[in-house]
């Protein structure tokens, strides 16, 4: 953890020292934005096929399989959330939580993953979930189509790196996202992947402007991944999935909050650094 220390302090003082820069040529952003859209399309394709398996399991009444597929399916969505959120209605019907509704889980318009999560993990049943599953599948297909047709706004893409870390800071660290399944660490990793992808794509440009900034970001990403690795289901295997969020120790929770906050704060300057409005 000795790296983490350096990063954090550098961040605190870096904030005040930052100067206006805008030497990045607009054309230099074309390739990162392109590659990001290709990344999003790729994840959407995976998201769609995993959602099909997940919803099929629900419709077949296979509770155990549906429970198993819940978290691995959501990861793809969590990665591309800054883009999915541009389609507010779909985002709401796919990913809203019960406290987004006045009447909570009883609200008839409450649909999507978290409605299914409530059924699968709280009521331990697939009964009555068929319609929600159908609706989710069709929403996901609509989303995929909508994103294909979308010209990605550069400032949304670059701003997405910070937005994802804000998302982690707001709902993942507290374990509010998946309150019935406690699979928050999967979502956490998804948000982290998505943020890191954006950062990686613009890293060469950011490095031209401020190499120390790049170093701080990288070290904080590493610090988070280091802590998350404590919770792989199979030691050393990132693809094995994650332990339940209630297993996360108080010490590790703190170890996550620090770099998450630093990243949210630091990445909020990324648009400015790249000369985007």
């Amino acid at each position, binding site marked *: 953890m000795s790296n983490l220390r350096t990063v954090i302090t550098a961040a605190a003082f870096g904030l005040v020292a930052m100067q206006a820069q805008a030497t990045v*040529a*607009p*054309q230099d*952003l*074309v*390739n990162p*934005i*392109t590659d990001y*859209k*290709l990344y999003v*399309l790729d994840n959407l394709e995976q998201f769609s096929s995993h959602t099909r398996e997940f919803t099929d399991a629900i419709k077949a009444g296979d509770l155990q399989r549906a429970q198993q597929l819940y978290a691995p399916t959501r990861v793809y969505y969590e990665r591309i959330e800054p883009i999915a959120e541009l389609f507010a209605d779909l985002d709401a019907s796919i990913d809203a939580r019960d406290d987004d509704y006045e009447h909570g889980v009883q609200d008839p318009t409450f649909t999507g993953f978290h409605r299914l999560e409530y059924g699968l993990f709280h009521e331990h049943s697939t009964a009555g979930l068929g319609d929600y599953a159908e609706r989710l599948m069709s929403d996901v297909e609509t989303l995929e189509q909508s994103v294909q047709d979308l*010209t*990605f*706004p*550069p400032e949304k893409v670059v701003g997405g790196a910070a937005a994802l870390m804000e998302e982690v800071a707001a709902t993942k660290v507290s374990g509010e996202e998946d309150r019935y399944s406690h699979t928050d660490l999967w979502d956490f990793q998804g948000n982290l992947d998505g943020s890191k992808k954006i950062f990686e794509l613009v890293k060469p440009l950011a490095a031209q402007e401020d190499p120390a900034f790049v170093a701080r970001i990288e070290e904080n990403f590493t610090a988070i991944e280091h802590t998350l690795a404590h919770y792989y289901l199979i030691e050393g295997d990132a693809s094995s999935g994650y332990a339940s969020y209630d297993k996360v120790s108080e010490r590790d929770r703190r170890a996550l909050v620090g770099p998450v906050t630093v990243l949210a704060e630091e990445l909020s300057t990324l648009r400015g650094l790249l*000369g*985007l*409005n």
Partner: protein
Amino acid sequence: MAGAAVLMLGALGIFYLSLGSKSSTDTADTHQITIDASGCTPNTLTVPAGAQRFTVINESERGIEWEILDGVMVLEERENIAPGLHQQLTARLLPGEYQMTCGLLSNPRGTLTVTAVAGQTVAADLSARALIGPLAEYRVYLTLEGRALARAVGDLQQQIADDNLDAAQQAWLQARAIDQHMALAVGLFSDLDQRLNARAEYFAEREQDADFRGFERLAYGLFEQQSTAGLLPVVKQLSADVGALRSRLSAQGVPASQLANGAGRVLQAWHDQQQNSEQLSSRARSDLQGLQAGIDKVVSLLLPVLRQAHPLESEALQAANASLAEQVPAADTQILLQASQQLADQLASVNALLASAY
């Protein structure tokens, strides 16, 4: 990465504005270039930066094209200049060294030197930022089309290997349609465009020329000679060239200045190619159909950028695009020639609008 830097300058080309009187560029004298069987006269030319008019005279025996190249990248071109005739084109160029193609592909290239002019400046910022999204989206389109093209050429290769003429003809049409979607991008790379799409008449020995290959060579075999004989090495080469095209596109993309210009140019080239036909061949029709689909994508990206500052022009562009889209499946030759010319003209005017918009 010197190439990338050069491309960047090319990308800025449309924003190269004169601080002096704009109209001076419109009345600039024309630079005359004569092309005969062996090359250009003069073979070296020096012009000032900014908008310049060129008159290209064809004194050779066959139809020719004339291009201005920045490295392998095509900045401007005129297709199908008939023997004994001349055509004009106006190009806005940044200071630097360029090459000119001079008739037959085997002819030596000419050199075009563009010199800086005091009082001119590059104004790039705002519109360039507005084009980031559209350019990225176009690159995504090219990437996805490139994947599809690789698959389609793979299928074509399989059918030729299996000596399955009917299926090979279908596969050729399929692959060619995708190639035409990407025509603007392919056309930017003079070397790859030549290997993929050059027609027999641009080669000294025509169909018998050893360098004649690509889609046109395969079409000659599959449709003229009704045979797959000898085509396997050609399709394998095409497959390799498609691979080269994809990596070129992924490394370089399309410069801002070429989005509208390039789309207009490929349509103009098709038009010039066909303008003397009484009746369009089915090949010419299906090429146009492919081109139209690719251009439609470009127009959909340009319209939102143009709309605010130039509502009338963007409406005209939208109308010309819609009209060609509507006509392309079935309309008469004359109607299609007219519609394609109209859309090509609209596209040719876009860069000036983008540059003056801000």
